[in-house]
């Protein structure tokens, strides 16, 4: 094969890698759909084990501990972490469908947090049936506003949404700092940068007795269902899909691209905002620094690994929720927290690598298939 031919082929494969996989998976490759991620995780664990081994630790013991604590002993904590991850990842996936790179879920998360907190602090006396729907709406709104900004910039001025949405993350974070160091600081909080604790009525109720799993789980499930309906059953979802594949074809199809970019960003942000609202009212009960350990960024990874499928997002989020919550276990068995981040990185690296290989195989199968029917 000449260099040129190889380059052309590579280009074709690249194109394929960045589009959604076809709906129908070929029988010969169907098994790979399951095997690939499993093998990838196994590979990641092997690398992690080697790493631990060479730093003089009992690798098997540590990995076993992590698994046991994340998915058996403290599974409820994993679910708690999975709630904001799912919501934010759903939002991110919605925008990614139209190939809009919304990297700003973290900022949109804080957008929701800020509005929800403002409501909780302003109306401490309202009963739960009033304040909670109000805060849900506020969370959605806060995230939506934060998503609207990069959306408008992209739709009207063609400003690269990756940069604008990413930069707005820092703005949101600093804005949060301003409030908790300034006007919202708890006067009785010994000068710590935290707000007052929310009234009991403005806390999301606990869903499973004896755990921290809160009502946000219901939001996550409902959101997954709504997003699924939206992207795969509605005309608007179809428009998003066409935009994601080819903007020129979308224009040719008469799709209002400007409007859809804005709507996609607003919805995407709203979901991340809901994640923020449920985290601050369901888990923390007050606004404090580092409310999110990077949920908005992890959400991007989750959305991709789930191939933007709303239901798959839910399960991948639980896997990552386990990784997030394993940090504490690591410390307990004498491993530094830095290693958790490293482990997450290794998992990500292997899964993405596996995904890339998987799509290559899929592409080649599709090509072979289509070639066999041609005259």
């Amino acid at each position, binding site marked *: 094969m*000449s*260099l*040129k031919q190889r380059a052309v082929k590579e280009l074709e494969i690249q*194109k*394929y890698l960045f*589009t*959604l996989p*076809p*709906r*129908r998976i070929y029988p010969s490759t169907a098994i790979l759909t399951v095997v690939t991620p499993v093998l990838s995780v196994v590979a990641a664990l092997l690398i992690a084990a080697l790493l631990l081994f060479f730093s003089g630790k009992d690798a098997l013991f540590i990995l076993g501990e992590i698994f046991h604590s994340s998915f058996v002993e403290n599974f409820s904590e994993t679910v708690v972490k999975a709630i904001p991850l799912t919501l934010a990842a759903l939002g991110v996936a919605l925008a990614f469908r139209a190939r809009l790179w919304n990297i700003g879920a973290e900022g949109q998360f804080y957008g929701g947090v800020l509005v929800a907190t403002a409501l909780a602090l302003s109306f401490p006396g309202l009963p739960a049936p009033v304040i909670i729907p109000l805060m849900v709406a506020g969370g959605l709104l806060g995230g939506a506003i934060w998503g609207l900004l990069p959306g408008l910039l992209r739709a009207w001025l063609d400003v690269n949404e990756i940069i604008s949405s990413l930069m707005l993350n820092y703005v949101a974070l600093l804005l949060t700092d301003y409030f908790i160091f300034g006007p919202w600081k708890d006067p009785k909080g010994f000068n710590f940068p935290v707000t007052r604790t929310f009234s009991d009525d403005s806390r999301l109720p606990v869903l499973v007795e004896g755990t921290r799993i809160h009502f946000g789980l219901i939001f996550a499930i409902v959101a997954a269902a709504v997003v699924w309906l939206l992207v795969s*059953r*509605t*005309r*608007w*979802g*179809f*428009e998003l*899909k*066409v935009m994601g*594949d*080819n903007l*020129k*074809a*979308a*224009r*040719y*199809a*008469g799709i209002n691209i400007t409007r859809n970019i804005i709507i996609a960003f607003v919805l995407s942000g709203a979901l991340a905002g809901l994640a923020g609202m449920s985290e601050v009212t369901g888990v923390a009960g007050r606004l404090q620094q580092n409310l999110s350990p990077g949920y908005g960024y992890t959400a991007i990874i989750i959305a991709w690994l789930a191939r933007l499928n709303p239901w798959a997002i839910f399960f991948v989020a639980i896997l990552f929720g386990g990784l997030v919550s394993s940090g504490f276990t690591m410390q307990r068995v004498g491993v530094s927290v830095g290693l958790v981040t490293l482990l997450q990185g290794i998992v990500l690296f292997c899964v993405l690598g596996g995904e890339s290989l998987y799509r290559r195989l899929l592409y080649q199968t*599709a*090509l072979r*298939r*289509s070639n*066999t*029917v*041609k*005259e």
Partner: protein
Amino acid sequence: MFVTTRTPVIGTSAVRLTDITRRFPGIVANDRVNFEVKAGEIHALLGENGAGKSTLLNILAGFYRPDEGEIFLRDEKTVLRGPADAIKKGVGVVYQHFKLVPNQTVAENVALGMRQPRFFLNLKKIEQDLDELGRNYNLAVRAGAKIGSLSVGEQQRAEILRALYLGATILALDEPTANLTPKETEGLFTAVRRLASQGFAIIFVSHKLEEVVSLASRATILRGGKAVATLELKGQPGEKEQIARLMIGREADIQSELELGMIELLPEKAVKEAASVTPTEPTLVVRDLNVKGEMLNSSVKKVSFEVYPGEMAGLVGVAGNGQRELAEALAGLRKVESGSVLLNGVNLANKPVRQVHKMGLAFLPEDRLGTGSAAGLNLEDNFLLRDYWRPEYSAGPFLRRRPARQGLGEAIGQYSITVGDVYAPARLLSGGNLQKLLLARELRSQPKLLIVANPTRGLDINASAYVHNKLRQVREQGAAVLLILEDLDEAFLLCDQLLVMYEGRLMGQLPPSRTPANLENIGLLMAGSSLAPIHRGMQP
């Protein structure tokens, strides 16, 4: 660095290609092409779009390797291992779309292509050398200026200077005058003549016959990937006409379609009678249409014409002369600066695409994979692409897939589309099958006017014949059809009238008859000449 010593003796062979064949999936782009350029010669390379000129240039530039055949440089058998190797061996290709880094200076762009020196750049020295070189060959460029700040003409000179500086003795220019003003063109020609007189071998790729006969001493004409003739241009009358005929006179494919009985020609009389019997209102009336184009010469300028029901009009011309812009403007995909587009009396200028489509104007763009379809999506999605908003596919905000699946099934049957898997991405369909699918989609809404750009480009003969028949059928059912065609044979076969475009203007309206005089006229109009008695030479 700058090499003049290699400039060979005038009259010796500079480059010789023997039996070059290069295949791409489904097409033979170069079919045993023989081509020779001598040192000191300006050799024109002519051909319609898709005749194989670009492939040949890319082979010379080292981008493609020929599947078969040999390349001789200065009578020495050579393999060009890549663009860098080609440059090293003295071949410089200046493409129509320049390959320069806009935010670097001319000198820096030149330095980019240099192998020596490895570490220390003396940009001042390069700038001085370039200035001198520019003065010698009438190619003056401000060597210290950034490319982005230069005019198109200057950028081109920078490209040529770079090639010369890197040691090119064989210089290929791909449609060098396409975006130049007449004054710049003249300057370029002076430079090219001077280079040739010093022993450089010049390959001049162009569509413009006037330029070719005034500049080149020989011309090789490519047609359907084959080199059909090499002519000595001696300045005698009739040369232009001869080239025009050679370029467009292909009948082979159409002939074979006829022989295979896949299509039948309508007797000319019948067509004319039909037209005269039904003196109806025109379906499409375009008046004084101005549209801004992608390039200098592709803006549509004050175009007016009509298409009647049951008529197939062909917009012909060399690609890039405004046909695409015109079609896109009609379909609502490009802004109309001024003028009107009346479809059955309703002005569609600057109306949204969907409304235009709803009014009964169907459009199949030339770029089937890039615009006409969302190629990563499956066939069903692509079948729905233009119609998903229609009530038959809607239930509230939801998209009804069942009628779509049914419609797709019908289309696959009716248009005999060969598909492996309806859920595989559309890009895996062959060109012919994709075109059939898109035709099925566009015709489903029974349009009053169908616009198709290059309906059979890249299609094999069976698929072409199928598309031709379908288009005729649409016309016979009373719709108006407007085709944008680069292949004139196709235009003769299908159309009732030909509209010739050149540099965004409508040059004339001619019958599709194949008489030598008419053929010649079309060729001349396409190349920008008027029909008046022809004098040799360039009029600035």
